[in-house]
């Protein structure tokens, strides 16, 4: 039974990693092919950094991700605090329901429906171009907001409300109390919300596809436009990302377990 379990686990992980191994291997191919390995070379890594279109798409993707996640975090923090204090039950319930919609809806519906709105508005005001950077930004903020709120809410719920009253008793006004008491206690929620929004934005293809204009191509859009198939230079880029994430995740795990051991020792002493 135990051996069967182990085999099952190994097979599952082979399944999970098969396409990634193919990706890494073919990033070193000496020809353009992603199906026949002709020889080893670093050609595509060199090509990657010299490829302006990819680099441009990459920096666009990062710009959009940073901008949208920062705005989503600011808006989301205010929203979570607002929802926390909101006493009107009906309003609270409907706002919560609205928050859940982008998470529950398929991406294609979110993207398509926002595209409908943008073209409708552009038709009314007679704008020359309905879709563009602004519509992508709005879309990215919208789909990451629920995740930001979801991350902040638990840490706000566990904050001692009386702390704030105490701070006020000690002479703080409401705003000071917010910045000195509430904000620090929900900091971890804000950070994890930001990270989540950032990664969602980096990775999104479907919603971006429906709301993208002409002047701003993200990496997933660029990849989708490669109808002749992905070139090994894209494999090279994602191999770099893959290896760096792998290293970082293991390092952080290692240090985490080390610090836990350290703590255990301290306790024992």
């Amino acid at each position, binding site marked *: 039974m135990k051996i069967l379990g182990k085999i099952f686990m190994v097979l599952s992980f082979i399944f999970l990693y098969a396409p990634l191994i193919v990706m890494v291997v073919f990033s070193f191919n000496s020809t353009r092919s992603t199906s026949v390995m002709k020889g080893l070379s670093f050609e595509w890594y060199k090509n990657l950094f010299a490829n302006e279109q990819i680099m441009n798409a990459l920096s666009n993707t990062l710009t959009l991700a940073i901008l949208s996640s920062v705005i989503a975090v600011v808006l989301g923090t205010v929203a979570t605090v607002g929802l926390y204090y909101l006493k009107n039950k009906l309003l609270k319930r409907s706002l919560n329901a609205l928050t859940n919609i*982008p998470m529950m809806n398929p991406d294609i519906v979110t993207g398509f429906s926002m595209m409908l709105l943008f073209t409708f508005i552009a038709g009314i005001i007679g704008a020359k171009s309905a879709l563009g950077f602004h519509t992508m930004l709005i879309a990215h903020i919208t789909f990451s907001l629920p995740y930001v709120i979801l991350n902040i809410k638990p840490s706000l719920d566990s904050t001692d409300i009386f702390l704030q009253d105490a701070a006020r008793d000690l002479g703080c006004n409401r705003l000071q109390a917010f910045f000195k008491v509430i904000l620090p206690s929900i900091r971890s929620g804000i950070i994890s919300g930001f990270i989540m929004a950032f990664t969602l934005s980096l990775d999104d293809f479907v919603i971006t596809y429906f709301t993208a204009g002409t002047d701003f191509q993200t990496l997933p859009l660029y990849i989708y436009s490669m109808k002749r198939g992905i070139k090994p230079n894209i494999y090279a880029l994602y191999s770099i*990302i893959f290896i760096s*994430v792998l290293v970082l*995740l293991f390092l952080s795990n290692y240090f985490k377990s080390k610090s836990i051991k350290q703590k255990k020792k301290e306790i024992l002493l």
Partner: protein
Amino acid sequence: MSSFKQKLLNAPYAFWSFVFVAIPLLMVVYYTFTDKGGAFTFENLKILLDKKYISVFAYSIWYAFLATVICLVIAYPLSYIISKMKSVFQDTLMVLIMLPMWINLLIVTFSWKEILSNNGIINSLFEAIGIGKVEMLGTSFAVVLGMVYCFLPFMILPILSSMQKLDKSLIEASEDLGATKINVIKRVIVPLTLPGVISGITMVFVPSISTFYISQKLGNGMIILIGDLIERQFSVSANYNVGAAISLVMMILILISVAVMNRFADDNDKGGA
């Protein structure tokens, strides 16, 4: 806090989600029931009653269902095995499960396409051992495999976390009371991990039923799902009204499917208690 300040604090978000979440959905309804000129019509929904569309809907639900079941069949035992391991290993394996999610779906789907193609790794292997080539791309097998691959982590992670939260003493107690291993799994572990399973099911089913990239790449243009239909209305036919109608139908189908699953889970819950 005064109600004015409450409102002030909530205004930006309420405004945002009303304009960019609620109104787009209303736009979907509006476009569904109007024609290109803006006049009221049922035509967009009526054409979806055509046999060819109904079979697309049926196939999409069926493939998404298959993908969900396969994910569950892989994820549940895998999570169980992992949750029994030492916590150091658990953390490492969790990292290894999350890692593929960092690589864009477009890339891994394309990579699968190369693996499954007639000259790909699997078929070369088959030829070497004398089975001969097996046409995989363009079949439902390839499309369901793509779905399972892309969304498997979304099934594993919630189940695994619900297994990790299991109270070990509860299992020990039931074993002490003479429950067999199978009974422990059936009576204790399954009911307690059900919330994880349910959220896993939704997180696999919804993206599977609405995908279009996976079916485009792995289906060779021969397998068309609901997502492809919507994408076609956007990118080829430029018929937003029909696109909206299909979106609306898909949302309703998803709501029904999720409700059925929740109902099923509820019943199971009561049965287990």
